[in-house]
């Protein structure tokens, strides 16, 4: 690892100030960033840890019924504390990485990275959640902008994510056997006004919504309603763990399973 300065502010304001330095890099739980640094694949001048800022942590139910999760809240905390409010989200969080990773990794870190195979983006997009930063509030549909690309600017910090809680929801993850990231993951959420389906792991463009499935399920929330709908293989990730055709096929299978499990 290259050396760097380490800052561990305890207020958001101090964190913002620290991140204004040249080549500053925010550090969430570090479960992706630290292995990257160990490989010398990045060389920030200063790492600004967001783990000591109380206002970025915690879960609460807002008056409007939305579930609010602080940006520096760990997956383990979400798995535990969101279970009563939004079981599908808690279940997703409880299957990211492994127990030790879940004790460090944070929702803000995951969303800021927007790995095309990460789980959280599927939940955020399918829930129609709002990503709140120290500068703006962004609707999920505008937040994700392709693999590793988001609406975040330099040094911008995710302070909170607000999830509308659906009437029914489920996440189906088919794991890549080595990394245990999602080879394909599908999150289905049914709201009073319609159904949202978000897919992670499959596309080279990162997480995406499957609108046709949403339309079909909006009329009839049963796996059978998907009929012979399918996503195209073109644009899907192809690697040694699965061809684009296979990933496209899994999207269909997992969507059906998620609907059945949610219904």
């Amino acid at each position, binding site marked *: 690892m290259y050396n760097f300065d380490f800052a561990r502010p305890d207020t958001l304001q101090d964190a913002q100030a620290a991140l204004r330095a040249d080549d500053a890099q925010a550090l969430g739980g570090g479960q992706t960033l630290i292995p990257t640094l160990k490989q*010398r694949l990045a060389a920030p001048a200063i790492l600004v840890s967001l783990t000591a800022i109380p206002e970025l942590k915690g879960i609460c139910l807002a008056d409007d019924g939305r579930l609010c999760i602080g940006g520096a809240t760990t997956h383990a905390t979400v798995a535990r504390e969101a279970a009563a409010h939004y079981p599908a989200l808690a279940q997703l969080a409880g299957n990211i990485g492994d127990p030790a990773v879940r004790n460090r990794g944070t929702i803000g870190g995951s969303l800021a990275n927007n790995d095309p195979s990460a789980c959280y983006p599927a939940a955020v997009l399918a829930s129609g959640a709002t990503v709140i930063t120290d500068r703006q509030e962004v609707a999920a549909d505008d937040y994700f902008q392709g693999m590793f690309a988001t609406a975040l600017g330099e040094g911008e910090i995710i302070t909170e994510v607000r999830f509308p809680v659906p009437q029914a929801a489920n996440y189906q993850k088919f794991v890549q056997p080595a990394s245990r990231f999602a080879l394909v993951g599908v999150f289905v959420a049914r709201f009073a006004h319609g159904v949202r389906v978000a897919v992670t792991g499959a596309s080279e463009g990162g997480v995406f919504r499957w609108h046709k499935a949403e339309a079909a399920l909006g009329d009839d929330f049963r796996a059978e309603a998907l009929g012979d709908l399918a996503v195209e293989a073109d644009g899907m990730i192809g690697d040694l763990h*699965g061809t684009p055709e296979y990933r496209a*096929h899994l999207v269909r299978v997992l969507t059906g399973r998620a609907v059945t499990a949610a219904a």
Partner: protein
Amino acid sequence: MARDFGIGASSKRREDVRFLTGKGRYTDDFNRPGQTHVAFLRSQVAHGRILSINTAAAEAMPGVLQVFTAADFADAGGLPCGWQVTDRFGNVMQEPKHPVLADGKVRHVGEPIVAVVAETLDQARDAAEAIEVEIEELPAVMDMRAALAEDAPKVHDDLTSNLCFDWGFVEENKAKVGEAFARAHHVTTLDLINNRLVPNPMEPRVALAEYDAAGDSYTLYTTSQNPHVIRLLMGAFVLNIPEHRLRVVAPDVGGGFGAKIYHYAEEAFCTRAAQMVGRPVKWTSTRAEAFMSDAHGRDHVTRIELALDENGKFLALRTDTLANMGAYLSTFAPAVPTWLHGTLMAGNYTTPLIYVNVKAIFTNTVPVDAYRGAGRPEATYQLERVIDKAAREMGIDPIELRRRNFIQPEQFPYQTPVAVVYDTGNYQATMDRVVEMTDYHNFEARRAESAARGKLRGFGIAHYIEACGIAPSNLVGQLGARAGLYESATVRVNATGSITVFTGSHSHGQGHETTFAQVVADMIGIPESQIEIAHGDTANTPMGMGTYGSRSIAVGGSAMVKATNKIIAKAKKIAAHLLEASEGDIELKDGKFSVAGTDRSVDWSGVTLAAYVPHNYPLEDLEPGLEETAFYDPSNFTYPSGAYACEVEVDPDTGKVEILSFAAADDFGNVINPMIVEGQVHGGLAQGIGQALLEVAVYDDEGQLLTGSYMDYAMPRADDLPMYQVDHSCQTPCTHNPLGVKGCGEAGAIGSPPAVVNAVIDALQRGGHDHVTHLDMPLTPSRVWAAMQR
């Protein structure tokens, strides 16, 4: 019979206490005063000519002590290969030099080119990045068939081609095999790939060397399965250090599985650099380095053909294999696809005619060598797969087809057509046992239950034999081995009766400290706690060949038995003197020497004390002291065998295979510690199932290793695997070693891959996918699903 100590007891492992409390001493836990660190600059391209190396900037960087290139090793030898194979035309194999640091050319991604020794590891790494190496990239030789083309680029310019050897076995049988095929009732042909694997012991390799200028002597701490072999190879062939000036220590070693047998460049580098820098030099492999520098395993491409008569009797077998050697010949590499593979092609069957052809090929990949099972899994896989395919083609139950061809118990010793003689075995018994364990007769009901849930259930069976207890020196010498394969032990009895056994075997997880003590305790009749097993240090153990090829108890244990028998013989003489009786009347039982038919006795410690305090002692006839060394060279391999059965469920929607149950019925001959034996089988099964379902090393066309971390190389995890049923109650003891043992370390990895693949093919065929007659490992969901779509 279950006992609470000695041979046959499931004694708890004594080494566990230190491992469970964090007190294990692995090589990386050692640090020497003044220690420096090395970082290797490794090739990022698979094949290229080194045009220039500029180290000036690196040399000027903070903390840098010295920067090394091939020029610094101009007077050193290459890393030697321990086995020379002679091809079917009588020529010896092509054997390129394997330099410590790349010399002139780089031949695989990960090959070390430059080494930087610095005060700290980060300083060494920083400096390594500042080195400029200009490389003219050459086309990478990746595909084995393409590598044989006349105009293929050559991995080694000084060799005539990329063909290391073209081996035929048994060459004289070739024509007869062809005739048998011509008149066969049925011929089954199968093309398959034995997937390339990365051994991945959890402890990465480490080398820490120091040089004592006063005594002009070296100490190397290294993660090795065989410290004496490293001392011999590195001292004699690479660095020219006489053995008495070189001590090699392999302390607690965190798993080996073959990958830590070989002599590696980093060990030689650290040893030489310690002398040149004048301070200890340490290298600890990262996992990323391990993936591209530890020897890989398997990587065979095979066509196998089986000729049968109308009753399903095997008439002849013919196989053609391309075996990947990688860029250089690793220590044992040429032996793996030849003598550890061809000699096993008879399997458990009476096939009278066999011909094996193996072409070993150089490619621009990491060297390939023995990995758990080594050659025998490759032989078993092809044989047990082609038998399964033949059974389906002929409409014979796969178990029945095997039974019709088994060597029968009364046929032992059995001379196979591929050179080896099996001493004992009872294949029918292990097959019966596994059928019983798996409740095979109710499989159809279980399958129907799965089908009702939309799942495809399959049952797969495989039988295996392995040749282990490696190996008779005179035999392997004829076959090209450049070393003997005996084992050694020194039994040192202390004055008060406690014992230290120094064994040339090496434990890196197998539990020698417990098992070996059980044997000696049993022979003398004293508590196991009185006996200490020491291994891994050339300074105090006799020249030994180490641990691989399931040889520790069969060969190392036998050496220890021999040495202990010498101790007992001498102790009896001392006891006879003390008891004023004739030696022939002395009996040893439960740690007590007594005169037959009398109540006169002296206990063990009384005799040992007399040996070292010889006040009353036959000094004129006998030296004082009680310490004996023995070397044991086996007269034959040992031949464990077993029947493995696997039941799987395939999800037709995703192609995912789930192992529902796995049963192993093994014949290991006599068993010293059943608990440890079962643990060895479990571990082997996990690696075999891993090969079948998960693991594969993948290179792209340009020689880049795409599975270079645990993000892409799928290691089996707890939730990939079932609870196993293992049984070793079928026992036909080995007839030619004193313990009647056969060895159990590799069995699980040998027998399990075909059982898993047979089960998946069975599931697919029963599920209506008749066209799927074979799938290459690993049977990933993507691959299985794609096969179902055709």
